[in-house]
């Protein structure tokens, strides 16, 4: 059975820092899943992910950004 690397890494990250201000673990897990690919992501998709993350951060209200 193939290892669920996303789950493993998220568990490791949570054990090191249980709470990340302003971002939920669901969001981080989704972000990390997008980083697993057969080959390194090229510049365009990475820039697009970065832009979306920054937009999400600025549009999120303080309440919805708390730890879930």
């Amino acid at each position, binding site marked *: 059975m193939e290892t669920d690397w996303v789950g493993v890494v998220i568990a490791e990250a949570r054990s090191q820092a249980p709470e990340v201000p302003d971002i939920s673990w669901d969001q981080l897990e989704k*972000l990390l899943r997008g980083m697993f690919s057969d080959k390194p992501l090229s510049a365009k998709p990475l820039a697009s992910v970065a832009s979306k993350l920054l937009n999400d951060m600025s549009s999120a209200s303080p309440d919805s950004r708390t730890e879930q």
Partner: protein
Amino acid sequence: MRIETIKLAWFRGAASSVSLETKGRSVVVYGLNGAGKSSFVDGIEYISSGGKIAHLAHEYSGRNLINSVPNTHKPKEAETEVAITFSDGSEAKTTITPDGTNTNLSAIKGWEYRRTILRQDEVAAFIKETKGGKYSALLPLLGLQSLEVAADNLRQLTRNVKSLSQLEATKATLTQLETKRLEKFGTNNDEQIHREIERQLRKYCPASESRDEMVRCKEVLEVIDSRIRSLTADQKRHLALSAAGGVKLKAHVDAVRTANSAIAGMIDPLVGHKITVLKSTETLARKLPSEGEIPCPACGQVVQLTAFRAHINEELEHLQGIMQTFNTRSAAIADLCDAVKSLRTTLARDEVKDWRSSLNDEIWARDFAYLDKVNVEFLRTSCEESDLEEIERKLLPLVETASQASLDSPPEVQELLSDRGVIEVAKVIVPSADLVVQVARAEVLVWAIEHLERATRNQIKTRSNSVINEISEDIKRMWLTLHPGEAIENVHLYLPKDVDKAIDIGLKFHGKDMDSPRLTLSEGYRNSLGLCIFLAMAKHGEPSNNPIILDDVVVSLDRNHRGLIVDLLKKEFADRQVIVMTHDRDWYTELRQQLDGGTWSFKALLPYETPEIGIRWSHGTSTFDDARGQLADRPDSAGNTARKIMDIELALIAERLQLKLPYLRFEKNDRRLAHDFLERIIGDGKKCFQTGGPTSFRANEEGMRLLVEADKLLLSWGNRASHTFDVVRPEAQKLIDICESALRCFRCDLCEKNVWLADAAGSGWVQCQCGKLRWRYDKG
């Protein structure tokens, strides 16, 4: 999974069609250099790597390896093909089109190149690799490639977030604003600043009803500027001198000097150029395919893509600090230039004309001339220490004198100037609250992504350690098989501390721990080590049953260690298909004698003649076709080659038949010639070598006749071939034929096994499988 057949057509050295038939067994293929052994290995790599052959990827290969994969003399109408059939009946096959693309090619799942094929040059190259290079080479075999890609993607994402949010630039702006705020407002908090704006608004615009802070600042500034415009000429002079005296020229010069010393010793254009090249190369690297090799854009050397990317990232990270120092220096120079420009503009105004005239000696004239003519735009691109010294020498006195002259300004001018300064700073501080939020958000995001990257890399490190420890156990065991009782031990892979993406090899050399084999091991030992690492890797991971192909990997090993490879293959890979290619005739002969004929087959290639004829198999398994290949042009060499083959073959046969040879002094024991062995074999053979079994035996007279004849010819023509070089073609031909026939007499014509196949325990003889042939010990 085992390979049954590898079929090539107009591929590399192959002409119309040639097949390596293994029947699912392990196989040793012998051929002189250039005979075509590696064409079969290339065929496997081409199929398993999806149309790539790493060692052929260089600047002359052309797109899709079009200049190197098809046979150079392929007829136009012919097709280049590779087909591999497997023991489960499946087939991987491709046809290579004239433009080098391939059709119907699907890579063989899980056949990782480094777990399947090892070539001679790769063994040494691996040991010579840097820690990072070894890591890149082994990473795919550790099963952690997806984690590594994710970690690299996260790193790139961090850079993207920083770049899109202009994090560093915004932080620098905030730092500047903070400095200005401290100057004007000290430690006052936001509320106190708001109250100061309110106070100024009531003072200059008492009727204003504006609530917006920015609008309030704008209204106040408009009124102050309006009042300044209506000042008297004298008041304006004071105002200008105050402005000139307030220029922080000394602080700006010091800032540039500090930044200069931070990058002292660096050569600006070189570093700048390197950064530009690396940035472009990084963009190029991200567009490249995920694996394989490319020629380095700088030196042309072929490097692994993973190593190439790792190298670029390492360099970029290393340069990040330098880049920041460069940015700080550029910002400091920009501030200094702005200050000089502001001073020039202020001191060029009409209202300070009289003040300038009052400073009328030569030195002041020189300083004003410098101020008026200094090329600020040039200063921006090149600000040397000599420029800073000139600014200090010629402009600082002007600023100080202007500052002194402004001290007696009328109070209303000082008040206007002070209020204007406060509101100007307030105007830029108020909107900076948004920047602070923006920076905080970006920093949280960056921290979170970096946190994920750290967690990913921790996993890589933990898992790598675990896998590397497992593999190291195999390496130690294999090393011990190849080097029993030697003073080089505890050979293992390890992850160097405090370095990411690095693997190295440690060992104990005569009791001392060594961090690298390159410190102490000879080339032969290094190659032996590379072989152990590759074989340990081949044993590790999935699939665990794919074939292993060793292409001429024992070149630099001495005879003793080459011999021990047989033990290694028997011990570690008895259940695995191994395909060994070698040009070493002695080793091939040894392998033929020592490896089990039931699980191993032996094949010899004819010397290569022309691309049109292509790769050809010898009719037998012996190496006498090498000698036949020399008949036309060099019959003496052909005779000499036949004699050399007999020297080694008979030495091994004598060992298997446990012949007792008279002791010779010193090294002569190891340098016996074919005649020495034949003399004893013929002497003993009359009573020992029997045929007609398994029930009634008689002397093997035909075999003995052939051996006697071979001995005679070797003594006459063989020695002539070696020493006087006057053997003619028919003589050499006859010598080769009779030698080959003589050796064949040890092989049973019924079961096709050698006479030493089975040792009939306790019975005092060895025999072939069916028992027709036997050799009795101690009867000579």
